[in-house]
Structure formats: C-alpha cells, structure tokens
C-alpha cells in the first residue's frame, strides 16, 4: 500500500482532489467571513448553499449552461441573504433563529421542488464547467496540473478572497464593514448607515454560499440530491474561526478541510480496515475540534450576533 501512497501520481491526484473538495468550503468560509465581519452570524449559510446547489442544477438543466445556472444560484443566494437581513437587521429577530429558519426553509423547498421539477430518477447528467488550464503555469511539472487545472469556480473563489482582503484592509468600505462588526455605534456616529453596510454584506454572504452550492451540484457531481450540502455551510463557520476572520485565512483553512475530505475518500478506497463511517466522520470531527478552541482561540468581531438598534 505504501508504495502506492508515495507514488507521484497518487500525490498529484490527492492534492488536486483536496483543492477540488476545498472549493465549496472556501465559498462557505468566505460567506461567513464577510457576514461576521459586518456583525451578522450567518448560520443560514448551509441553507443558502443547498438552495444555490438546487437552483444552479435547475438552471443548468433548463438552459443547458452551467454558467447560467450558477447565475441563478447567485440570485437565490442574494435573496436568501436579503431575507436573513430583513429578519435579523430590520425586524430585530435573533440572528441564530433566522439562520436556522433559512436552513429548514431551504431543506424543505429544495426537497419538495427537486421531486417536482427533476423527478425522483435522475437519468441525465447536468451540464458542467470545463476545467481551465492557466496558460504557461499549467506546464510546470507536477504542480502545474494540480494548481492550475481547476474548475473556473475555484479560481473565482480565490479571486473573491483576494478582492475581499483588499477591500477589508485597504479601502474605506472595508473599514466601514469591519467597524460595523466591531463598533457599530462609531460607524453610525461617522454618518455611515450600519444597516446598509450589513445588508450588503449579508447579501454577498448569500451569493458566496450559493456559489459554493453551485460548485457542488453543477461543478462536481453533475446532479442534485436532497440535502447535498451535508453540513458544509456549518464547516464554513469553523473555517472562519480557523482563518481568524481573514479571507485568505479562510482559503487556507478550507484547504485543510478539503485535504481531510480527500484523504478520507482515499482511505475508503484503500480499505485500511477502519469502517468507512468513521472516515466520513473525519471532517466533522475536525470541525468540532477546530471550533472547540483546541487549536487556539481567536477573537471574533466584537459586535457579531448583536442587532444594531439606533437610539430614538
């Protein structure tokens, strides 16, 4: 077995799989990062992801284009983000309750509509994305094929992470976002609309989560199954903590989880003698450990989870 493991093609294959597995988690992590930075817990990321996966699948099925499906997914993500924002920011509902609601709502609707629209038997595979090889870089021996021949959505996730980093730490918008999460009163005093900042961030959070969902359905397996997000949105919440609320940190943390996922799949294939259920558990156990603060505690934005209410 070890001869196989240390084979070069095994390693490239493993690393490519890790990156592939990491992409939806990166989106989930970025989704939670932007909303928590602005002061809103997005427990609903899981539901937004599931809805995104479903809408992307339906869109791709009817238009024949994975890209248009993904566009529809972004719209549903933004709408669910808007719903979370209206409930938790304007109406002052508990953010956790609102998020849990979005998860249950999404699970119910996608399960119902998928049977109506797609039928129980899935016969044809959905259209998907061509992988993109980045010119020149893909020619690098060994690593080129791993890092530079991926789904376009993977590149988009990295691009978003870089752009978010720039916005967060180099622009006044970013300052407003971070301040809305740390000290909303100060933002308000400076004449910036805290609620507006949070609305925008939560809607983008929904868009990122649904992009992750679109990657799951049209990007990898090319079909939709009930509850196919399988807790990845929640892993996104762990990724934020591991990544210390930094977009690039989220990318790294997602890669770790992606590697764990790719590893457990390979261990299953090799029949190492561990029952497969324990291998499937691995990402959840890692998430559990990550969030329980065993890996060192990070400081969350001060005002996250608290609704901002103006003095009358």
């Amino acid at each position, binding site marked *: 077995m070890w001869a196989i493991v240390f084979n070069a093609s095994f390693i490239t294959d493993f690393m490519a799989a890790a990156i592939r597995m990491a992409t939806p988690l990166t989106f989930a992590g970025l989704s939670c990062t932007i909303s928590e930075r602005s002061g809103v817990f997005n427990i609903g990321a899981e539901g937004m992801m599931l809805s995104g996966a479903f809408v992307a699948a339906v869109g791709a099925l009817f238009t024949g284009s994975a890209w248009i499906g993904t566009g529809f997914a972004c719209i549903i993500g933004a709408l669910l983000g808007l719903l979370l924002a209206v409930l938790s920011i304007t*109406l002052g509902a508990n953010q956790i309750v609102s998020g849990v609601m979005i998860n249950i709502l999404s699970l119910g609707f996608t399960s*119902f509509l998928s049977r109506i629209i797609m039928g129980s038997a899935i016969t044809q595979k959905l259209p998907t994305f061509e992988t993109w090889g980045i010119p020149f870089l893909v020619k690098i021996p060994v690593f080129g094929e791993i890092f530079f021949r991926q789904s376009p959505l993977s590149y988009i996730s990295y691009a978003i992470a870089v752009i978010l980093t720039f916005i967060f730490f180099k622009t006044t918008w970013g300052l407003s976002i971070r301040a809305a999460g740390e000290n909303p009163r100060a933002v308000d005093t400076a004449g910036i609309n805290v609620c507006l900042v949070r609305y925008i961030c939560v809607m983008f959070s929904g868009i990122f989560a649904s992009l992750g969902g679109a990657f799951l359905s049209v990007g990898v397996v090319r079909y939709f199954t*009930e509850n196919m997000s399988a807790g990845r949105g929640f892993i996104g919440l762990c990724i934020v903590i591991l990544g210390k609320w930094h977009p690039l940190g989220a990318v790294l943390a997602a890669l770790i989880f992606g590697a764990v996922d790719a590893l457990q799949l390979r261990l299953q294939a090799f029949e190492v003698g561990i029952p497969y*259920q324990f291998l499937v558990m691995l990402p959840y156990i890692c998430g559990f450990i990550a969030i329980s603060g065993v890996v060192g505690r990070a400081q969350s934005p001060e005002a996250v989870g608290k609704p901002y209410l103006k003095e009358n």
Partner: protein
Amino acid sequence: MSLNWKQITLSLSPVWATLVALTLGVGLILLAGLNPIKAYYALFMGAFSNIYGISSTLTKTTPLVFASLGVALAFKGGYFNVGAEGQLYLGGLGATLAGLYIHGLSPLLHIPVTLAAGFVAGGIWSVIPGYLKARHEVNEIITCIFMYFIGLLFIEYMASGPLFEPGAPSAMSPEIAASAQLPIIIPNTDVHLGFLMSLTLVFIMHLVLTKTTIGYQITAMGLNPVASRYAGVNIVKSMCILSFVSGGLAGLAGASEIMGLKHRLFDAFSPGYGLDAIVIAFLAKSNPIGVMFASLFFGTLRSGAGMMQRATGVPTTAVLAIQGLVILCVAISLVLPQWRPRWFRADIDKETPRKKENE
C-alpha cells in the same frame, strides 16, 4: 387580570402563522400544477379517516413530543439544541444495548432500565455541546450539528457492524428482549405505551416550568444568563444539567421508537423527528402544552403525507416545504408584535422600549 381579545389574538400568533403557512402551501402546490384542496383533503383523510391512519398519526406524534419537549426545554434555558436528531439516534442505541444485553428482568424493571439507558445516551450526546457553550462560549448550533452528523454515522456503523444481525437484508440489529418492549395500549394498532408517557411528560414539564424554582431558574437563565450568574446560579453546572436533560428527552424519543415500534436498531430509523422538533419547539414558543398540539399537527402531516402522494401525486416532501413555510411565518410572527400598530396594542401591555443590546 382579564383577557381581552387583543391578548388572545396575540397569544395565538403561532396558530395564525401556521394558517398563513398552510395558505402559502396552497400556492406552492398550485405552482407545481397540482390540486391543493385535494392534496390537503387526502392528507387529512390519510391521517384520521380510519383506525390505521389514527394509529399511524399517534405513533408518529409520540417521538415528536419527546424530542420537541427536549428542544423546547433547551430553548427555555437559552441552549439552542438543534442536535436533537443525533441525540434521538443515540437514545435509540442506548435502549437497544440495554434491550439486547440485559436478560432475565421482569418488564417492570427492564422497561425503566432501557428507557434510562436511552435517556443517558441522548443526554451525553447533548451535554458535550452544552458544556462547551457554558465553559468556553463555543457556539452550540455548530457543535450540535457536528454531533448530529457524527452520531448518525456512528449508528450506521453500529447497525451494520457490531450489532448487525447475521443474515439480515439491511443494516439492523437483532430484536430486543420482549421484556424491554413497550406494550401496545390500543389493540390492533401500533400505538404503544410511549404515547401515554410522552403526554405525561408534557404535564410534568408544564408543572416544573410554571410551579417550581427550577423552572424559574431555567427561564431566568435563558432570558439573562449574566443576571443569573450574579444571582448566584452556577451557569456551567446549570447548563450541563439543562443540556443533559434536553438531550435525554430527545434520547427518549429514540428509545421509545425502538422499544415500542421498531424493536430493532436500524440505520436511519428516524425520518427526521429530531429536525421537526426544532420547528415544533419554535412553533410552540417552547410551551409544553403548545408542544403537544404542534407535535400532533406535525404527526398528522407526516402520517397523511403518504396518502396525499398516492391520491394526488403531491410528493411527501411537500410536508417539508410546508414546515419551512411554518418556521418562516413563526419567525416573522415572533418579531411582529414589536411592530404591531398602535390601535392593536393590548391594554395592559406596557410601552416597553426595545432593549438596547449593542452596548
């Protein structure tokens, strides 16, 4: 204190929310190109028109009541137990182990022991997130969800591995001892003693929450943990006990399901009762009596869904969509009272300013 119509209208807000959700459900079924009136009629007839329907409705209500009581208790105390499904599975495992490996007891002893095993197993699965929340401020939603996934996989492993009955067609354990099985209380149906036990628990919990100091402490802890701590309540200890009991109740749901209905541990033996329990607890505003009625409502939905699918072609998952609408409407109804028009404010409802929470 006399109740006027405004207060009654307000306190019935979950009922209005449910009605709105069912109306939206009509629109949803129409959109799917199917007949909503026939669908609702078939659903209702499936659940109540004959003894099999009623039997199925009550057996489905039973685990819902147990699990929802657990979730409602947790909500009361400020612990968002969204992992009831996992605790339910662990409860089923605990009961199966006690039912399989303890022999020679009379049912009078074996049944309580088996129930206790289910309670403890569910409780342990819940006390871990509870302790982490109280001691380390770890968000219990996420830990509960992970515990749920881990628990589900663990049960799958147990049912297909160590407890697997050789020769069985799918992942299942051998049948538990007859002395650990709950008796059927209505002849020729599946309604078992668990149903009565769940109703008894509703009233016990109602009394505990309204008449005892413990109930008052739980509510106080849920409303304001900081004040409770200053009042001398040991938050870590209280939260551990609360989360243990909450998980234990969810565990009883699994235990009674195994002991009364299935008699074996299957993988995926629950169709999502623990997830319904979250919606039910919200809908009931964590009130035990409300939990009973909301569970019956959800039991009806689950029980009639099959008939609805057979008679009208509306898939059973419509019930999940309706649940989603219910929780959406309930979530809105929870915050609406703050926004109700001036003419609708109840007379004794003091003009309390909204709390300043962001200091």
